[in-house]
């Protein structure tokens, strides 16, 4: 059905609201993004499909609710009863959960929480469909558990709530109304003005004001203009774009339709990285549905505006996340960046004016157009508006995707939302901004997170990866890790980046191998300065950041490595050894059994010892000891 009138959108929305908020049968929603599937969600889904008759139980899939730590997440609702989200659901357990629900009982142990209000930020025109239901019992609500209570979901508004392969459910949650309004009632300049007022900035890392980018592109000379979605999410440790594409692909398409109309483009591309096969599947399905509903193609929504979107997949090159490299790759060439004396908004893809925005940026656009630029601008800090999605990972309890207003402190994100450090260990640093970012130490935990403040701290926002590191992390090794990554990913065309990064890496590798010498720290600083100043593109220009921030905040660790030949984190193998603490060891024999090299000896209930000749420092004993009896020396 082609949609040309607002009534048609309204009709779909009304019908779908009933099915998603007031199902007539017991309904199971299984979170089926890549993270959920990796944790076993597909088995749960298949099993539920197999055992339940469609006339009795509805089995549906959704995207990711964000708390990936507790995947697979499954939410179950019996008509008229609370909608409850369960954690770590296995295929064997699903039957048990459903049987309990049928008796209006709930297996408390498996409960994450009940949904208090499932409406998205765009649905404040309707009543909370669970209003009368949630208050009637004592199960804790999802919205009040610490992981969710500080969050505000704009970009992630539908992830985990709708079937990503159903355009109807997207419309049911208020989707495509913003596009309808924009295409029918607004001039392109008005849209650009609204985006400018909203204060939206590029979520891919650069933080460039989106409205200004669009305005420049619209004004640039050229017969054809292009709109590009950068889904080449290459920062290790960041996966919000994957989650949006897998959980709510239509939000990106709608954003691109609005953007294309504002800029005056009829052709768009989504450049997705090859490592995200499921995202590609969901996007292709979404594009087909949008075409069938008259939301892509000719005469979109009866407005006379034409726009098509093609998908292009990357082939594994981090540098292709850089705009000029990405556009070359789109042209079927080697993805090497070029100098940006002329910006891509003027000469980009095929030398034509091109607007490139990140997935999360596009997903924000429909929300801004629906709720108003002023509403968006009221959130966040002075220069960074709205919310930001972070992937909170590493040595933190609640790993997952979190969306918080800009300006939320690191401490709130890590300790309140994230629940603090795993296994009661001590916090050491949080790494933000991917390989181009830096490590922020404990002293700066109260830093309100926005573009400017992270940059001042020597790090950057980047795409929003937030990797928490504890006492067992070696900061010199972290710097070495990122430089190794960047050395592999440097495209090699400019000397400062190609040779400079390699030399930095050599020095760092030597330090980690116990071959550090006096003057190495100064050499690192000197080299970094050259690489920063002379590299052609941002990959090289920011490459020394991991070195510079660890030197700024953890200089003592470098010195310990170089002068004392010790690695306090117990990572650099040449610089530490494991020893068993005679006081704490109770001879439980776990390390004895687990050691792959038979390097540990000792009788049960007696103190064990490690044969240093045999030990390969694989850390299995250290991680498996429950009594802190393995020491790093």
């Amino acid at each position, binding site marked *: 059905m082609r949609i040309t009138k607002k009534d048609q959108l309204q009709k779909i929305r009304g019908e779908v609201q009933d099915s998603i908020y007031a199902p007539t049968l017991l309904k199971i929603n299984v979170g089926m993004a890549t993270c959920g599937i990796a944790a076993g969600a597909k088995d749960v889904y298949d099993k539920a499909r197999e055992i339940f008759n469609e006339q009795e139980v509805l089995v549906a899939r959704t995207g990711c609710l964000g708390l990936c*730590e507790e995947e697979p997440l499954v939410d179950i609702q019996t008509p008229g009863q609370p909608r409850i989200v369960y954690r770590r659901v296995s295929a064997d357990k699903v039957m048990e959960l459903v049987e309990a629900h049928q008796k209006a009982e709930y297996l408390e142990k498996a409960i994450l929480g009940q949904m208090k209000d499932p409406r998205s930020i765009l649905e404040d025109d309707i009543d909370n469909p669970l209003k009368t239901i949630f208050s009637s019992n004592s199960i804790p609500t999802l919205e009040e558990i610490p992981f969710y209570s500080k969050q505000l979901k704009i970009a992630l508004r539908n992830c985990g709530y709708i079937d990503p392969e159903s355009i109807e459910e997207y419309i049911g949650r208020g989707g495509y109304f913003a596009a309808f309004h924009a295409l029918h009632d607004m001039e392109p300049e008005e849209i650009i003005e609204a985006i400018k007022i909203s204060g939206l900035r590029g979520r891919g890392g650069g933080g460039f004001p989106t409205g200004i980018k669009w305005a420049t592109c619209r004004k640039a000379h050229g017969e054809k203009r292009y709109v590009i979605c950068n889904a080449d999410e290459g*920062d290790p440790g960041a996966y919000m774009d994957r989650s949006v594409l897998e959980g709510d692909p239509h939000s990106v398409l709608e954003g691109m339709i609005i953007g294309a109309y504002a800029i005056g483009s009829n052709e768009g591309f989504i450049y997705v990285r090859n490592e*995200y096969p499921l995202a590609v599947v969901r996007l292709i399905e979404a594009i087909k549905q949008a075409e069938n509903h008259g939301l892509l193609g000719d005469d979109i929504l009866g407005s006379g505006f034409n726009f098509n979107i093609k998908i292009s997949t990357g082939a594994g090159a981090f540098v292709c996340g850089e705009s000029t490299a990405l556009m070359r790759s789109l042209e079927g060439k080697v993805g090497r960046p070029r100098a940006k004396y002329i910006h891509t908004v003027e000469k980009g893809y095929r030398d034509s004016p091109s607007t490139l925005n990140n997935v999360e940026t596009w997903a924000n656009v429909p929300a801004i157009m629906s709720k108003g630029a002023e509403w968006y601008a009221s959130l966040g800090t002075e220069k960074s508006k709205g919310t930001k999605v972070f992937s909170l990972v590493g040595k933190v309890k609640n790993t997952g995707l979190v969306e918080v207003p800009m300006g939320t402190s690191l401490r709130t994100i890590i300790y309140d939302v994230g629940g603090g450090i795993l296994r009661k260990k001590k916090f050491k640093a949080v790494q933000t901004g991917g390989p181009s970012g830096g490590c922020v130490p404990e002293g700066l935990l109260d830093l309100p997170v926005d573009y400017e403040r992270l940059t001042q701290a020597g790090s950057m926002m980047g795409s929003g990866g937030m990797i928490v590191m504890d006492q067992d992390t070696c900061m010199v090794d972290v710097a070495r890790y990122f430089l190794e990554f960047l050395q592999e990913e440097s495209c090699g065309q400019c000397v400062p980046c190609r040779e400079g990064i390699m030399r930095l890496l050599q020095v760092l590798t030597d330090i980690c191998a116990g071959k550090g010498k006096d003057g190495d720290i100064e050499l690192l600083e000197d080299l970094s300065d050259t690489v920063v100043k002379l590299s052609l593109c941002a990959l090289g220009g920011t490459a020394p950041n991991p070195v510079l921030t660890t030197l700024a905040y953890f200089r003592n660790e470098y010195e310990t490595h170089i002068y004392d030949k010790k690695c306090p984190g117990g990572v650099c193998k040449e610089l530490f050894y494991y020893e068993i603490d005679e006081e704490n060891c109770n001879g439980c024999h776990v390390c004895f059994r687990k050691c792959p090299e038979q390097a540990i000896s000792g009788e049960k209930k007696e103190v064990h010892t490690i044969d240093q000749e045999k030990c390969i420092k694989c850390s299995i004993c250290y991680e498996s000891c429950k009594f802190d009896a393995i020491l790093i020396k």
Partner: protein
Amino acid sequence: MAESATSQEMAKMVEQPEIDFRALDDLIKERFAGDQENLIMILQAINKEYNYLPRPALNYVSTRLDVPLSQIYGIATFYSMFSLEPRGRNIVTICLGTACHVRGGERIKERLESHLGIHAGDTTEDMRFTLETVRCIGCCSLGPVVTINEKVYARTDSEKTLKTLDQYE
């Protein structure tokens, strides 16, 4: 000549695939409209079909698309997903993204390397496994992760991974 070849070379010689040039032509002309801009995606399709990029197929692409072979070589070596060597029946990929790195991905890599007797990037002599690394597949919250062929193994460690390998022939 066969006498001087090592067993690994022999295995690779045996594995040389027959190229279906007619299918390849359809792929280039029909699925990808004979458009040079689609070169990377054409190579992806070939890489998927044969598990690597066989030289005869690349020669054909070069002629059909009128793109110099040197340019195709440039692309094949620039992007990490392409391989110019035949790869094993099972591709074991260890994620070395930051989250997996801090949770011990590197240690899994070391164990697998010593267990399989190859370095990351190489293939076992019997062509059973190719060991690769990847910088993040976006499953950071469940790290460390290892993928074998298309399946993702989450919250894993070196012991679990070694056991899992037995399932793959």
